[in-house]
């Protein structure tokens, strides 16, 4: 952070009191965030304590019924599935992203690195709905994948509307983030350590597992956290690619507000659980990150 540079009072007649400038700078955004983020979050917390509320109903917080409902098998299964899909996506993006980031940061010609990285993350800037939609075109029973498979004599795959399609879609959406973070981490890697390791007789595998991976562990953890959070809260990929078999927490919340089964209290409770899971993941990273820092 910058050294705070508080402007000294000047001997001019127009000098405003000390508090005017900070207020002018910080109040507009602060008020906006208070009104449209802090108060709404507190409101859904209040609403989550109201059982069976519908739009227009009287808010009367009376207990933990909505949270207890989450622990019933049906809702619990949805949350477990969300976690499973998010974890699967996280592992897959790490496995696919690491070699890419490694090649881009350590092997690719220096002057092409930035351009190649930009090229890799460019699809991130396109509409996430349309990217997901493109996977429908590829994965549907008469889609591109099966046309190619059957033309070379392989059995067709029925992937659309299954959890596998959701993981493919989410992995596709989140891989660029993983590569960006791993690249930043690998690029800072001290190459002399790799050379030293090789000189001391380590095999490339030993160098990778004993030097490269430990050195880039903070980047790996940050990338995994980012992918996990986004995967857990993703609505579009499960909705478009998952069909009825892949009800996730985000979809269930959506249905409580805009779907057929309107129950704002239960939806709010689910939202609070989602926020808590994300906070838990961040807290784990911070704890883990600190331990890592201490171990160096």
């Amino acid at each position, binding site marked *: 952070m910058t050294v705070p540079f508080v402007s*000294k009072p000047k001997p001019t007649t127009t000098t405003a009191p000390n508090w005017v400038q900070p207020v002018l*700078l910080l109040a*507009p955004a602060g008020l906006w965030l208070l009104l449209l983020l802090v108060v709404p979050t507190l409101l859904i917390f209040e609403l989550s304590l109201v059982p069976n509320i519908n739009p227009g109903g009287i808010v009367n917080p009376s207990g933990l019924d909505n949270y207890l409902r989450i622990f019933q098998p049906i809702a619990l299964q949805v949350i477990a599935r969300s976690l499973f899909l998010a974890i699967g996506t996280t592992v897959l993006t790490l496995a696919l992203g690491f070699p890419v980031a490694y090649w881009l940061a350590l092997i690719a010609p220096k002057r092409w690195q930035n351009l190649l990285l930009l090229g890799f993350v460019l699809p991130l800037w396109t509409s996430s709905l349309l990217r997901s*939609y493109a996977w429908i075109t590829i994965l549907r029973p008469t889609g591109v994948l099966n046309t190619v498979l059957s033309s070379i004599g392989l059995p067709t795959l029925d992937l659309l509307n299954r959890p596998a399609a959701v993981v493919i879609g989410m992995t596709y959406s989140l891989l660029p983030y993983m590569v960006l973070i791993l690249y930043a981490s690998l690029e800072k890697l001290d190459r002399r350590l790799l050379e030293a390791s090789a000189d001391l007789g380590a095999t490339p595998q030993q160098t990778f597992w004993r030097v490269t991976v430990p050195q880039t562990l903070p980047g790996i953890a940050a990338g995994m956290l980012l992918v996990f959070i986004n995967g857990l809260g993703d609505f579009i990929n499960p909705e478009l690619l998952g069909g009825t078999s892949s009800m996730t927490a985000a979809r269930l919340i959506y249905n409580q507000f805009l779907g057929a089964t309107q129950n704002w209290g239960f939806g709010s409770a689910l939202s609070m659980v989602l926020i808590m899971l994300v906070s838990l993941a961040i807290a784990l990273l911070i704890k883990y990150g600190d331990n890592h820092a201490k171990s160096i």
Partner: protein
Amino acid sequence: MQSQSKPSQSKPSQAKFSWQAGFTAGMFGFMYLPILVLGFYSFNEAPNSAAWTGFTFSWYVKFFQDGRILSALTDSLTVSLSAVAIAAVMGTLMAIGLARYQFLGKGLYQGVAYLPLIIPDIAIAVATLVFLAAIALPLSLWTVIAAHVVFCLSYIALSVSTRLVDINPHLEEAALDLGATPLQALVTVLLPQLMPAIVSGCLLAFVLSMDDFLISKFTAGGGVATLPMEIFSRIRVSVKPDINALSVFLMVTSGLIAIVAELMRHRSEKKRFQ
């Protein structure tokens, strides 16, 4: 693809093609496959076939003549441009304020300011809807804009505060000592230095706002449909080639914005080292 490229130059003796290079090339293919597929089908004559039946521009003509798509595009642009404009002013001021002052509750303020970067969109969307219902504000285009400002603010402030770390505070102090008013110092000294970061933050916020489905869906009134909302309602029904054409159009546009943003960031980084 660009990546099946040049063998490693760092170790000329080791001429063999590393497996990572091949793998990366494959992943480039993975990243561009959906885009190429959409592009391919946007020119395909048959409306609902995986096979190529002939070249046509008619899907592009069709979506440019589609009144609902065009009105959705207008709504989207109105929302994103307004939200980014408001957020640019507030976000920049906020980043400057946070860099400059120490105050009680600063950590809390900062935490809240960057909360939209981590909380899932669905939770923000739900919370905003509940809030708007609680104060009985009728949903409209304005409520969508107000909700979009929240996350645009975070991205712009993040971009600006990263740049602020590298700016020499003495320049602004010098301006103040030489008799500039705080406003003059801000506008003539600090803002020009921040401009590349503000622009690149705004571009990112603009793209994210144009892309947003959930928050718009939860905060839009009856007559409002942003482009993602319109696309969502169509692709739920069936796969249609005019959506392919629209995708290609949007992807090319946002690709260009991405390249401009990258150049901006690059320029601001260069400036840093001058």
